[in-house]
C-alpha cells in the first residue's frame, strides 16, 4: 500500500502518467495540454516527460481532435482526447455519435476504437457561459459509447486508467469543481484488483432512503446524508460511476430496502440521466416504492450566469427537501 493524499486533479494526472508508462500506444491529444498542462493542469508535466509525440497540442477544433483520434485508433493507437470544457464538446458531436460510437458495430467487431474522451463537466466554478455544462445525457443516450463519471481522487486515479485500458470507446466525465478536493489514493494497488469501471458503488449504507448521484453531486449527496444523520434519518448514498451502461443492481437492492429514492444531477431534469434511472427503478421495484423516485436536478433553462448558479445547482437543501417529499407521498 502506498497511500497518498491527492487532489482529484492530481490523481487524474498520476493516472494518465501511469497509462502513458504502461502502454507506448497511449497518446494524449487536446488543446493546451502540452506546456500549459491543460487549463486545469490535469496533464501537467506529461509532455515534458513523454514528449510532444505522445502528448500533443492540437489545432483548435474539437471535431478534428476526435476525428483524427479515430484514425490513430484504426492505426493501433489509444488516444485520450481532452475536451477543454464541457460546452466545447459539441463541435465534435458528429464524430463522437456517428463515428466513435458506431465503428465497432458497423465493422462487425473488426474495428476497435479504444478512445477516451475526457470532459471536465458541471458548474460551480463561477465561469462564463459554455463552461459549466453537463452534457452526459447526450452520450448516455448514444448506443455504442460507454460513459463514466468519477467523483473522488481514488476513483479518478483508477477509473482513468481502466478507461484507457478498455477497448470500449469511453466518454470520461470529470467533476471540474472537485478537481481541488483531496482524498486518499492507493497508487500501488493493482488495477486488476480495483472496483470494476462499469459498476456503481454504495458509498454510505443507510436504511431510510436511497440517494443516487455521480460526479460533482456525490459530495453533495454525502453531505446531505451527514446533515440528517443527527436527526436520525439514515440515507444510503450510491455513486453511480457508470452512466452507460448503468449498473443498477445495487440500486434496486437498495431501493427495495428503503422504498424511497432521490437522484441528483446538475444537468436539466428533462431528459436527463435521472429520468432513465427513475424509469428503470420504477419498473424493477414498483411494488416496493413508497413514493415515486424524485429528481433533484438543474432547472430546464440554459446554464445561468455565474451569480445565479448557486440557486441553479442542486445543493444539500434541495436534496433534503426531496428526501422529505418522498416521505410525504
Amino acid at each position, binding site marked *: 500500500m502506498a497511500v497518498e493524499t491527492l487532489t482529484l486533479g492530481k490523481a487524474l494526472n498520476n493516472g494518465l502518467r501511469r497509462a502513458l508508462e504502461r502502454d507506448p500506444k497511449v497518446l494524449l491529444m487536446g488543446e493546451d495540454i502540452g506546456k500549459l498542462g491543460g487549463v486545469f493542469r490535469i496533464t501537467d508535466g506529461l509532455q515534458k516527460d513523454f514528449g510532444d509525440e505522445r502528448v500533443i497540442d492540437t489545432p483548435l477544433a474539437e471535431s478534428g481532435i476526435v476525428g*483524427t*483520434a479515430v484514425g490513430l485508433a484504426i492505426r493501433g493507437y489509444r488516444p485520450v482526447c481532452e475536451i477543454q470544457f464541457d460546452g466545447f464538446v459539441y463541435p465534435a458531436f458528429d464524430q463522437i455519435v456517428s463515428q466513435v460510437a458506431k465503428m465497432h458495430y*458497423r465493422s462487425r467487431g473488426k474495428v476497435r476504437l479504444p478512445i477516451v474522451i475526457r470532459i471536465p463537466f458541471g458548474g460551480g466554478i463561477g465561469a462564463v457561459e459554455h463552461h459549466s455544462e453537463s452534457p452526459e445525457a447526450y452520450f448516455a443516450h448514444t*448506443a455504442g459509447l*460507454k460513459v463514466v463519471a468519477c467523483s473522488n481522487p481514488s476513483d479518478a486515479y483508477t477509473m482513468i486508467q481502466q478507461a484507457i485500458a*478498455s477497448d470500449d470507446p469511453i466518454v470520461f466525465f470529470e467533476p471540474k469543481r472537485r478537481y481541488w478536493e483531496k482524498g486518499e489514493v492507493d497508487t500501488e494497488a493493482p488495477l486488476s484488483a480495483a472496483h470494476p469501471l462499469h459498476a456503481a458503488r454504495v458509498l454510505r449504507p443507510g436504511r431510510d432512503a436511497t440517494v443516487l448521484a455521480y460526479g460533482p453531486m456525490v459530495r453533495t449527496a454525502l453531505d446531505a446524508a451527514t446533515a440528517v444523520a443527527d436527526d436520525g434519518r439514515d440515507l444510503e448514498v450510491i455513486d453511480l460511476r457508470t452512466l452507460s451502461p448503468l449498473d443498477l443492481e445495487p440500486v434496486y437492492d437498495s431501493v427495495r430496502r428503503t422504498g424511497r429514492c432521490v437522484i441528483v444531477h446538475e444537468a436539466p431534469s428533462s431528459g436527463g440521466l435521472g429520468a432513465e434511472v427513475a424509469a428503470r427503478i420504477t419498473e424493477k421495484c414498483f411494488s416496493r416504492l413508497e413514493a415515486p423516485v424524485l429528481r433533484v436536478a438543474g432547472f430546464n433553462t440554459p446554464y445561468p450566469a455565474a451569480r445565479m448558479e448557486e440557486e441553479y445547482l442542486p445543493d444539500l437543501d434541495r436534496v433534503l427537501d426531496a428526501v422529505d417529499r418522498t416521505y410525504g407521498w
Partner: protein
Amino acid sequence: MAKGDRTKAGGGGTAPPEPEFVQLLTPDGERVAHPDYTVDFTDEEYRGLYRDLVIVRKLDAEATALQRQGELGIWASLLGQEAAQVGSGRALREQDMAFPTYREHGVLYCRGIDPIMPLGLFRGVNQGGWDPNAFKFNMYTIVIGAQTLHATGYAMGITKDGRVGGGDGEAVIAYFGDGASSQGDVNEAFVWASVFNAPIVFFCQNNQYAISEPIERQTRVPLYQRAAGFGFPGLRVDGNDVLASYAVTRAALDAARQGQGPSLIEAYTYRMGAHTTSDDPTRYRIASELDAWQAKDPIKRVRAFLDKQQLADEAFFAEVDAQAQREATHLRERVLSMPNPHPEQLFDNVYPHGSPLLDAERAEFADYLASFEGSAN
C-alpha cells in the same frame, strides 16, 4: 475622414476561367506530354488499365441492375469516374492505406479486393463490416467528409510509427467529393495534415455535382486551389484520363511517403449517372451536358489509344468484355445468395467488452421471439 485605396483586398465575384489540368491522354486517345508528369507503362500495363476500367464499369452496371431488381436497397454508381478511381487506385503501393467515401468501388477493385465486399452494405444485410487494416482499405463512409479526419489521423500514426521516409514508406489517400469540400471536417483535416506534415494525399473527385447541386454551390474557384491556403500543394488532373490520374497520384503518394507532407488532387470528372439509384437527375440537369461529357468518356479514350497504338486487337477487347461479364455474373450470383442476418444479430458487436444491460435486452428479445414460435402470428 480618410480614404483607403484598395487594390489587393476586395474584388472577386467574377467567374473563374476554365482551369488547366494535367492531361496525358486526350479524349481522342492521343498521348500528350506534360512538363511535370509522365507514365511509362508496358503494353501489358496499358491493357491492364483498360481491363480495370471495363470491369469496374461492368460491375457497377450490374450493381445498378441488381438495385433495379430489388436486390440492393440502393447503389451509388461510379459511372464516369472510372479513370479517376482506377488511375488513383493503381497508383497506391501495397503498403498504402485508402479511406473511401461510398462510391470508390473502382479503387476497391484495384486494391485487389473482392467486389462483393461492400455489397452487404448496399443490400442492407450489414453495414460494411470489413477490417480496414486487413485490406488497407477503410470501410465506406457515408457521413460526408468524416473520413478525411480519420485518414489524417491514420497518416499521423504512420509518422509516429517511423514509417515515412524512403521508397518503402507508407502513405494514405483520402477520397472525397466536390460537395464534401464545404464540410468543416474536410477543412479541419487540411489543417491537421499540414500542421503535422502528415503523409496523406487528399483525392477529390470533382464530379461536378453534390446530388443536385452543381459545383458553383460549393466554390467559386477551382477546388485544388484550396490547398495552398493550408500550406500544401494542390493540382488539378483530368479525372477522365486514367494515365494522368495515375501519374499525379503516384507522385503525390511518393512525395508523402518520403516525408514531403500532404497534397490535394482535384480529379476533374463527371458523374454520368444519377447520384444514387434513388436520385432523378433529369430534375436538375440538361441532357446536352451529359452529351458533352460522353465525348470525354474515360474508357473510350483508352480504347482509342490501344487501337491507334496497336496495343490490342478485337480478340483482346472481346476477351475483356467476356471477363467483365463473367465477373459481373459471379457477383450477381453471390449477391443473390447473401444470407439475411438473423434478427438477434442486431445485438452483436455494440461494444468490444459487451454490456450487461444489452445482454439482458438480447435475452428478453430472444424470449419474445420464441413466444411467437408455433403461433400463427
